[in-house]
C-alpha cells in the first residue's frame, strides 16, 4: 500500500480506519483505511466484488464492521444505526436504484427532508401556519433540488417511470434533501452515456463547491481522473493503492486488478501450450 501525501490543511471529514468485515468464510473487506479531507471528492475503485459497496454500507450503518472504526468529522459512528448516521450528515445513493414505488418525484425528494422539518402531527391536523409554511418551503426546496440535479421530467411524475439517468438524479436529490455534509454515491453514472456522465460529474463539482465531501464508487475512469482529488483502489477486500487518480491507475497492481497480470496470463498460456503439444490437439 502506498500513497501520495494529502493536503494537511483541511479537516478530515470521513476517517475510516482498519475496517474489516467477513461474511461466513469470506473476508469482504480487509483492513481498509481511508481518510477523506473536507470538501474533496474521493473515488473508490476496483473490479467487481472488491468490497467497495460493503465499505459504503458500513459507513452508512447498514453493516456493523467486525473491527476498525468510522469517524465523521471527529465523531465515532462505528456501528451506529443508519438513521443516526444520516442525522450526523451522511447521505447516500444506491448501486441498484432504490426509489420508493408509487411516489412522485417531488414526494420522493420531500421525504428526504424529514430531519429538516419540525412540524408535528397535531400541527398538521390543526392547519397551523408554521406547518403550512413548512410544507410550502419543503416543496419549493425539493423542486429546486430536482432542478439542480438536472431532472427535466415533470415533478408530479412517478419517480419510477423516469429514464434511468433521471432516476439516479432523483436519488441524488433525495439524498441532498437531508442536507448532508458527506454524500456517498454508489456508481452514480452506471448505465449513463458519456454526455449524461459528464453532467453528473459537473453536478458533483458543484456540490463540492458548496462544501460537501463526496465519496463515490465509480467505474468510469475518465470521470474519476477528471473529478476525483484522490482515490482508493480495492481488490478482493483489500486496499491496493491510494492517492491521486492518475498515479493510482498507473500502478501495476491496479492495472493487474482490472486487466489481470500479464505474467499470470503468460504462465497460464505457457501451461496450456505445454499441455497441448504432447497431446497433439
Amino acid at each position, binding site marked *: 500500500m502506498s500513497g501520495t501525501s494529502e493536503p494537511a490543511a483541511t479537516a478530515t471529514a470521513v476517517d475510516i480506519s482498519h475496517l474489516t468485515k467477513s461474511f461466513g468464510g469470506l473476508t469482504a473487506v480487509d483492513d481498509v483505511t481511508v481518510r477523506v479531507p473536507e470538501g474533496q471528492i474521493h473515488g473508490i475503485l476496483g473490479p467487481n466484488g472488491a468490497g467497495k459497496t460493503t465499505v459504503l454500507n458500513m459507513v452508512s450503518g447498514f453493516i456493523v464492521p467486525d473491527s476498525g472504526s468510522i469517524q465523521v468529522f471527529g465523531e465515532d459512528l462505528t456501528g451506529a444505526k*443508519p438513521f443516526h448516521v444520516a442525522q450526523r450528515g451522511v447521505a447516500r445513493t444506491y448501486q441498484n436504484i432504490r426509489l420508493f414505488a*408509487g411516489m412522485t418525484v417531488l414526494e420522493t425528494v420531500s*421525504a428526504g427532508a424529514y430531519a429538516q422539518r419540525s412540524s408535528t402531527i397535531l400541527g398538521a391536523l390543526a392547519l397551523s401556519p408554521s406547518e403550512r409554511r*413548512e410544507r410550502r418551503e419543503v416543496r419549493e426546496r425539493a423542486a429546486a433540488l430536482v432542478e439542480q440535479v438536472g431532472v427535466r421530467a415533470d415533478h*408530479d411524475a412517478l419517480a419510477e417511470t423516469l429514464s434511468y439517468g433521471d432516476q439516479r438524479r432523483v436519488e441524488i436529490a433525495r439524498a441532498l434533501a*437531508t442536507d448532508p455534509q458527506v454524500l456517498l454515491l454508489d456508481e452514480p453514472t452506471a448505465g449513463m452515456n458519456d454526455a449524461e456522465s459528464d453532467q453528473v460529474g459537473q453536478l458533483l463539482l458543484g456540490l463540492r463547491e458548496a462544501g460537501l465531501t463526496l465519496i463515490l464508487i465509480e467505474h468510469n475512469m475518465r470521470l474519476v481522473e477528471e473529478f476525483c482529488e484522490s482515490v482508493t483502489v480495492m481488490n478482493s477486500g483489500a486496499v491496493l493503492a491510494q492517492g491521486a487518480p492518475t498515479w493510482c491507475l498507473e500502478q501495476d497492481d491496479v492495472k493487474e486488478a482490472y486487466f489481470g497480470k500479464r505474467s499470470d496470463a503468460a504462465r497460464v498460456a505457457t501451461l496450456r501450450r505445454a499441455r497441448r503439444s504432447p497431446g497433439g490437439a
Partner: protein
Amino acid sequence: MSTTALLTTLQFAGVNALFALAIYASLWTGVLSLAPVFFGAVSAFTFGYVAGTLGLSPALALVVGLVLGAALGAVTAALIIRLDSHYLAMATIAMVLIGRVLIINLVEYTGGPSGTLVPGELGTWLWLIGSLVVAGYVMSRLSGSRFGLAADAVREDPAVAQTLAISPRRIQFVGFVISGALGGTAGVFQASFLQYIGPDTFYTHLGFVTLAAVVLGGAFHWAGPIVGAIVFTILPELLREPMGEYDRVVTGVALILIIIYMPRGLVDVRRLRLLRTRGRRRTPADEDPSRTGSTPATVEVAP
C-alpha cells in the same frame, strides 16, 4: 334487499371503515397488524361496563374509547414493534385470541360467554358520519405531511428510509398509536350499533373482514379502506340471497384474486399516476390542461 336492511348494512360498513382505517394506519408504516380488533374489544367492553355502572354521556364515551385505544396502541407498540414482520403479525393475532379468552373469563366485567348489553346512543347516523369525516380529515392531512411521507418511505423501503434520518421504529410506533385510537373509536361504535357485545363480537372474523376490506380498497391511500369497507360489507349481503351459505366463499376468493391481480386495491394512486404519465406522453400536458388540473391523485392539500 329492503331499504332498512340496506341502511343497517351501510351503518356496519361505516363502522368497518373505521376498523379498516385503523388497520391501514399501521400498514401505512409497513406493519401488518390485527391489533385494532383487540383495541376495539377493550374499548367496547370498558364503555359497556362504565356506561352500565356509572353512566356516561355519549361524547365522553367516545373520547374514552379513543384515548384508551391510543394508550393500548402505544403500550403494544412499545412491546412488540421490534419483532420481524411475520412474528409481529402473529403477535397481533394472538392478542385477538387472548382477548376472547379474557372476555369469557372476566364475567364480572364483561358478562362472560353471554356478553353484555350496551347503550346505543352513539349508534346514529350523525355520530357515525361525523366520526368518519373526522377520521378522513385526519388521514388526508397526514398524507403528504412530514409523518405521512416518512411513513410512505418506511413502508416502501425501510432501509432507505433510515438513510434519510427516519427511524422506522418511531414512525411505526406513531402508526400504532393512530391505529389504536381509530380501533378504540370503532369498538365503541360497534358496541353502540349492536347494543350487545359478546366474546365473538371482536374476534378473528372481524379482523379478517376488515383486513380484506383494506386489501380490496387499497392499502396505499386512506380512501382505500373506506371504499373497501363499504364494498366488502355490502357485497356479502347482496350475495346472501343467490349464494346462500356460500356467500363468504366469494369473500375469500375475492381476497385471493385481488392480492394476486390488483395488489394495490381499488383506490390505486400509483396506477392513476401511471395512466396519467402515459396519457401525457401521448398528448402533451399543455394541450390538455384540464387533465392535469383534475387529477384525483393529488393528495397534497397545502396551499
